[in-house]
């Protein structure tokens, strides 16, 4: 098991290095001289030259890359030109907000997606299956930001039950935190629920056609036992993988959801970075997103090995 984890970690390293090269080059492709941008209003050639030397911009690209990577590995992503704060600190502050949203969303998605998928698989070909499948496809087709706007319209503007946006930290007031994070989590969870439902359905359909299910039924086991003891245990293995992998992808949805609800999280950080031309922030967010995704896929692989005895050897 340990050697498997180590091997997977080793495979992830070159991937991460390539991501870092892409991210680094992205910034270098920008038109304009970064030293000029850093100088702001200052136009004195001497000052600009000092900046150039200070930030290593006079060095060849590979040297610049290695310097940057060295900093990143120590958690130094540079300084945001908008907030003047170290980007590493901003990430540490904002990441938990998005992680909380993503976890709540994943809980909602699993609570809806798995039962719905199992139900559709068992009722395959019936109106129940069609209804659930249509709802699933609908969930995939709704833009998260529009769903967010519609929920605000209903629960905040019309009914006044929930705040239309903003955020309160969990440790400040857990109840207020729940009120503020309920709609965003629901929005984020919808697409995830749809994906989990679809995977559960197709995996369960495949499982139900296996010989051991027929054997279980043939030896007179009650349908409930067949489902819980035999079908679910095997049918849900790929679903665990999908759900874990999707947790890494939830960040994508979080960008828009946080924008709609004005939540100061990781996703809003990249949007703010884009609009204030704070490209170092954009770089850092892209890199962190990739790290989290690779971490999640590692966890998904480990979970798969633990859950499916055939691979445990």
């Amino acid at each position, binding site marked *: 098991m340990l050697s498997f984890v180590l091997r997977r970690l080793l495979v992830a390293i070159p991937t991460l290095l390539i991501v870092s090269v892409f991210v680094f080059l992205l910034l270098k492709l920008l038109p304009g001289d970064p030293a000029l941008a850093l100088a702001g209003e200052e136009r004195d050639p001497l000052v600009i030259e000092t900046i150039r030397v200070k930030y290593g911009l006079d060095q060849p690209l590979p040297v610049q890359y290695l310097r940057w990577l060295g900093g990143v590995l120590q958690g130094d992503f540079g300084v945001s030109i908008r907030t003047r704060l170290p980007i590493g600190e901003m990430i540490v502050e904002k990441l938990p907000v998005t992680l909380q949203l993503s976890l709540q969303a994943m809980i909602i998605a699993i609570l809806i997606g798995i039962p719905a998928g199992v139900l559709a698989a068992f009722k395959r070909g019936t109106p129940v299956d069609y209804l659930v499948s249509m709802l699933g496809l609908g969930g995939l087709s709704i833009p998260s930001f*529009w769903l967010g706007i*519609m929920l605000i319209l209903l629960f905040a503007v019309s009914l006044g039950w929930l705040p239309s946006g903003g955020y309160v930290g969990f440790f400040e007031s857990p109840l207020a935190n729940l009120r503020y994070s309920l709609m965003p989590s629901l929005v984020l969870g919808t697409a995830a629920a749809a994906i989990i439902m679809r995977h559960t359905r197709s995996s369960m359909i495949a499982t139900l056609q296996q010989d051991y299910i027929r054997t279980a039924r043939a030896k007179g086991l009650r349908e409930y036992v067949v489902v819980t003891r035999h079908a679910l245990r095997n049918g849900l293995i790929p679903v665990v993988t999908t759900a874990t992998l999707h947790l890494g992808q939830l960040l994508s949805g979080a960008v828009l959801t946080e924008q709609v609800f004005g939540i100061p999280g990781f996703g809003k950080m990249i949007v703010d970075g884009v609009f204030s031309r704070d490209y170092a922030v954009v770089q850092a967010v892209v890199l962190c997103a990739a790290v989290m995704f690779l971490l999640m896929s590692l966890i998904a692989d480990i979970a798969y090995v633990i859950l499916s005895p055939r691979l445990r050897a």
Partner: protein
Amino acid sequence: MTDVSLPADPVVGGGHRKSALQQVLSQPSAVIGGSIVVFFVLVAIFAPLLSPFDPNASDWLAIRQAPSAVHWFGTDDLGRDILSRILFGARASLLAGVIAVAIAIAIGVPLGLIAGYFGGLLDAVISRCTDALLAVPFLVLAIALAAFLGASLQNAMIAIGVSAVPIFIRLTRGQVLVVKGEDYITAARAVGVRDRNIIVSHVFPNVLAPVVVQGTITMAVAILAEASLAFLGLGQRPPAPSWGSMLDVARQFLTEAPWMAVWPGLAIVAIVLGFNLLGDGLNDALNPHRDTE
């Protein structure tokens, strides 16, 4: 969001081999989805004929009017007819989808063919780069690229297309690896057919069906992404109508003019649902596993 294709439902019982078109037409979801897609294509083409008003003409006497007999979908904050803007908005959406998917296929499929067929170092390099790109969430990558390229519909299409490239590389490569071991490829090699000809006439046809299915699903993803970028202000520039940017404006008038937020969203849901349905139907109809079961 990027990988929503699933293995096709296993077919119960046998059945005769039907032509690809017959198989597609026998899938209700493909027919319904296809109809929705055709509807929007027609809307986009005939938008100037269908629109009751000029989509960009402000009517200062009709600002934020609720839906009525004159303005079926109401008017926006500048007194523009929302129905006309929705009809014209179909153009930006479809164009973005088509161009982005075309870019993704044009770059992704050849790279996947090369990586899968030749293997070795070339494959290693292409595959590692693909892994790296896939590690960044689709929309985050598209936003970053669009931001670095600058806000415009054209750049949004490029950003979305490039972000979708790795999906097609991985799909094509996997498909090639399956086909490569088949006897007819070995036979073609043995009689001395050149690699290029083998790829074009034996490998590529086997890759086509999954690419068509993935392309259709990616249309849905690309249209959603375009709407998202426009919503963030990274797509179609105003005043040209785009559903995503209409929603961005509508957000500021939720209390006074909720209809402004309803229609563009419904339009996006409908067109994306159309492509998703079509993709699902095509997947069930064209998935090669169907023949072997």
